[in-house]
Each structure stands twice: as C-alpha cells, then as structure tokens.
C-alpha cells in the first residue's frame, strides 16, 4: 500500500498566502490573513485530507490553489510548472490539469443548462473533439459516476443532492485532470449519500490515478478516505502526517484537541476530550508567535514570540510546534 509515496508530486504550493483587504474606514488598511504561508505537496494518486475548524482558511487554500483567487504571495506548481503567473491562453491550457468539486451541489450547477450540456461544455471550452465525440465522452463519464443515460437531458433541479454532486464530479472529471480539489464535497449531503460519494471518489482514484485534495471538517470522513492529512489552524498548517500515523500519534496540541472531538463508535471506550478554552482569534489580528498560543494548554512565554516552522519530526510526520523543536519544551 501507500504506493503514492514514491510517485511524483502533482501539486506543490510553496509559502502560499492569501490576504483579503478589509476596509476599516479610518487609518491603515487591514488584512484578513486567511492563508498565511502554507506549504503543501500532493503526490500522484494520493488523497490528501485537509481539516480544520470553520474559518481556518482551508477552503481559501483550496480556491487559491485552483487560481480562483490570486495568491497574495507564494507559488503554486502543477506538474512542476508554476501556474501562478500564467495568463490567458496558457492558464486555460493548464486548467485542464486541475479541477474542483464544490461544496454546495445546489448552487454549483447552472440551473438553466441540461446536465449533458454542462458536461459537453467543458470539452467545448477546451476545443476537445467534435460534437459527436463530445456526446460520447459525456455519456461515458456519466456512466462512470453512476448517472443513467436519460439524465443527459435533465435539468439540475430534477436531481437529488447526491446526484447533483455526481454531476459536479463528472464535470471535474471530464477534462481528465491530474488533481481534483474537493471543497467539502459531502457536507451538504445525507450520511448514506456521503458514503456513496466517498466510495465513488476512491473508485475514481483507483481507475484514473487522480490525486484529490479533500477539504472537510468532518474528521471521520477524512479519516476514512485520506492517505495523508493536514491540520490547519488560523491560516497555518499545524501538523501533517499519514492518516494512520496522525491518529496513532498526534503531536500538535491543537490537532490533539481536534481529534479528541471525533465521536467513538464503541460506547465502552471512554475517550478523554480535550476542551479548548477561548475563542478562535480573528484572522485580521492573529496572535504573535505561534497563532495557537492563546488557547494552547502548554504555551510558554516563548510561544508568544517565536513563530514555529513546520518541521519533519519523523519521516513523513511534520509538525509546527516549539514543543518538538530542539531546545524547546521537553517533549511530553
């Protein structure tokens, strides 16, 4: 297993930052630091789960990686090619390689377009094939995502949420991309439908060797689907490890608190929940040093002054915490 480890990197973000300007009315312009210097690497055929609480910047990171908003700083490489500075035709060419599935299947499909047209339009935009072969390709993709041929001439509102998400997935797949960013693709769906879509994603990964960046706030879903998981907090990557490793040996205090919130199926296992105190600080005015130090049970004075970097503690296990740095706090 874990064959992806030896495979090449498909998507690499280096020091990705996204600040949104805020009009305060008077005085200097302020910025919401939604994503503040994140490094991320996704290998071919890998499913990378990105978790974090609401407002931690995980969706913004996903959208920035897809060039839906321009990154404030940093570079994004797809297949080794920097896509951040690409314009016009070159950018359009590269867009075939990275696609996105959106959170809300009810608003992500044009209500005035039939499903078949939605799919064929993707091909039309990129000038792939003629109308006849486009139709065949669209039919083939619909079959792959579990839609029936007669759905071709139906409007999105005639479908259920799960079926719409299949259409959204088909639209992302039809251009044969290398990587698909799924921004909370199942959080708007029923639990039974969630399982179907997640299994579909795994099947597609196996058939096409596509990489996925799976953004979610539901830890159990992420645990089930991901090969590797990254934990974000206030625009920073806090910890990153293989799925098994992360759940077995969580290092970062924030990740520990987050994982302890996953409900346990077995009622006899009594898990201790770590309750965090305080509120999520405003990303407009993030804390100095380690952004988590205001809520961290282990925080020291040093944490308020020194910004921890994401360092590899063990092979494949990275963490951004002073506790694990040499000369830092004693590990415990």
């Amino acid at each position, binding site marked *: 297993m874990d064959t992806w480890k030896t495979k090449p990197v498909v998507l690499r973000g280096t020091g990705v930052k996204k600040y949104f300007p805020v009009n305060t009315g008077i005085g200097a312009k302020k910025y919401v630091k939604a994503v503040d210097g994140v490094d991320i690497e996704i290998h071919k055929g890998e499913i990378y789960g990105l978790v974090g609480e609401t407002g931690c910047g995980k969706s913004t990171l996903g959208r920035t990686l*897809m060039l*839906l908003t321009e990154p404030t700083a940093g570079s994004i490489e797809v297949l080794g090619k920097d896509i951040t500075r690409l314009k016009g035709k070159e*950018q*359009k060419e590269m*867009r*075939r390689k990275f*696609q*996105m599935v*959106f*959170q*809300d299947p009810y*608003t*992500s*499909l*044009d*209500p*005035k*377009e039939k499903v078949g047209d939605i799919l064929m*339009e*993707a091909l039309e*935009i*990129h000038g792939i094939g003629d109308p006849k072969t486009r139709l065949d390709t669209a*039919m*083939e993709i*619909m*079959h792959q995502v579990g839609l*029936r*041929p*007669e759905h*071709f*001439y*139906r*409007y999105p*509102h*005639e479908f259920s949420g799960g079926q719409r998400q299949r259409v*959204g997935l088909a*639209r992302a797949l039809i*251009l044969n991309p290398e990587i698909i960013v799924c921004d909370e693709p199942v959080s708007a769906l029923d639990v039974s439908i969630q399982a179907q879509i997640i299994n579909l994603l795994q099947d597609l990964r196996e058939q096409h060797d596509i990489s996925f960046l799976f953004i979610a706030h539901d830890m159990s879903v992420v645990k089930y689907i991901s090969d590797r998981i990254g934990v974000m907090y206030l625009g920073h990557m806090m910890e990153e490890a293989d799925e098994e490793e992360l759940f077995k040996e969580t290092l970062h205090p924030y990740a520990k608190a987050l994982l302890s919130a996953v409900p346990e199926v077995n009622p006899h296992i009594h898990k201790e929940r770590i309750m965090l105190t305080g509120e999520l600080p405003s990303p407009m005015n993030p804390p100095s040093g380690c952004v988590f130090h205001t809520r961290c049970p282990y925080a020291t004075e040093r944490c308020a002054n020194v910004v921890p970097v994401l360092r590899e503690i063990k092979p494949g296990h990275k963490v951004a915490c002073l506790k694990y740095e040499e000369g830092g706090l004693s590990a415990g």
Partner: protein
Amino acid sequence: MSILHANEMTVSAANANATETLTGAGFEELKARLAKEQRAIRIRRFTSNKGAVFGLVVVLMVLLLAILAPVICHYDPLALDTVNRLKPMSLAHPFGTDTMGRDVFARVLYGARISLFVGFTVGILSGVLGMVVGLYASTNKLADNILMRICDGLKAIPSTLLAITLMAVLGADIRNVIMALTIVSVPSMARLARGRALVIREQTYIEAMRCLGASKLRIMWKHMAPNIISPIIVQVTFVFASAIISEAALSFLGAGVPAPAPSWGNILNEGKSVIYQAWWIVCFPGAFTALTVLGLNLLGDGIRDFIDPTSEG
C-alpha cells in the same frame, strides 16, 4: 411531477445497465422523447396559470385585429366624410365616427398597428440594451460607475417629461417616438439586469465555469444572461405596456405620432374636445389600450413560468 418519475422507472427498467447499449438511433429516440417531455412540462406550467392564458388570448386577439384590419374593416382610417361627423354607433360604423367623419373602428384597428409596433419595438430594444448595459456594468467596476451614473441621471428626470423634451428636440415622428421611449425605459431595465447579474455573479456555478477555463464572454452570455433573463422578460412586457401608454400620452399631448396617422393616443387626443357630444371616440381606443396593457402584464408573468425550468407554476 408524477409523470416524470413514472417515465424514469420504465426507462431504467428497459436499459438496466445501459450506457454501452445506447447508441445511434436509440439515443436519438431518447433525446426526442425527453425533449417532448420537457416541452410538455413547460406547456403545463404555462396553462396552469389562468391569468397568463387570458393575457395570451387578449394579446393575440388584438394582434390579429391589427393584422387583419383591411379584411375586417372596409373604411380607410384617413378618409374624411364630413357629412357624417360625430355619428354614434351604428351597423355601418360600429364605433361611430369622429369629428371629421372618419370611422373610429377603422382608426382603432389601424391605430393598434402603430401602438403595438411602438410598444413591441421599445420593449425589445430597451430589454436588449438594458441587458447589455447591466451585464457589462456588473462585471467591470469602471463601466459600472460610468453607466450607472448615466442611468441615475436619466432616472432623475420624470420619464414623461424627458420623453416630451426628447420629442421636442427630435421632432414628431414615429421613429423618434420609439427612440425617446427607449431612452426613457433603458435605465430601469439596466438597473434590474445589473442587480440580478450581481447576484448571479457570486453563484458557485459561475466560479465553476471559471475553474473550467471559460472565457469572460462565455460566462457573461452563456451563463449569466440566461439566468437574469426571467425578470428582464417580465419587465419587457411591462415596458411594452407602458410604452403603449406613453405613446398615447405623447400623442395626446401632440408630441407623438403626427396627426393624420391614427394611434390610440392621438385618437384619444382628438376625441377629448368632443367628449360630451361623442363619448365613443375616447371610450373605444381607451378600452383597447387598457385591455392590451392588462393582457401584456398577465402574459409576462406566464412567460417567466414558461422559461424558468425551476419554477413549479
């Protein structure tokens, strides 16, 4: 909706795992059947709106009367017959005659041609222009500021006064009537289009199109335009109706369609001085105007239901 589900069942039973088997003729057949089904749904939605059906019937009847005017009525709307001035309704003159002995029925029918033509042209022109202006304004900040300030300026002046002023400058002529009324009605149309476009622009499916690499033009015309068109079409029917009234008002004030040619407005204008002796001159074109406007408004409502696939009707 029950018909829909029943269909789905039979189809899925017929081709249980169907994609491979479904080619050529089979697909064409499916396509034709589903297209027919969609049409049936739309027609059912439209016909379930009784007001819309009434509106359609009224508008079609007025249209038919206008087109078939020479067949229905043998009088020339311009022919003077001074012996028979201000004659009340009779078999020879169903709507009576006016101050110069012209047949009012003929004048109303021929006047319908001009009134409907003006209304239709103004409605379509301002709809198209308003949509172009609104769409561009919603996608470009600079264009937005310039275009919307112009619209604000135009809207600040009462529309009838503005139309009268324009007519005074341009001169009384049917083409100028259309131009003046279009200029007057574009701003509100543009505002409406822009408002809708600003909402649509933020929808996820527009972002999804960007993600696919769609060009700005494609997004604007293929995805934003169809989604803002419903309120625009309703507004077009309102403008159509109000253009008929405005044209009547302009003609009534003598600034509209020039004298001998009949339009509902200038028939009213000529009739007003003799309203106590010959009420029919004012009454019939007035009734036609009111009925047509009512029909158009009801029809507009129905067209929106017909166009929007998501409306339940």
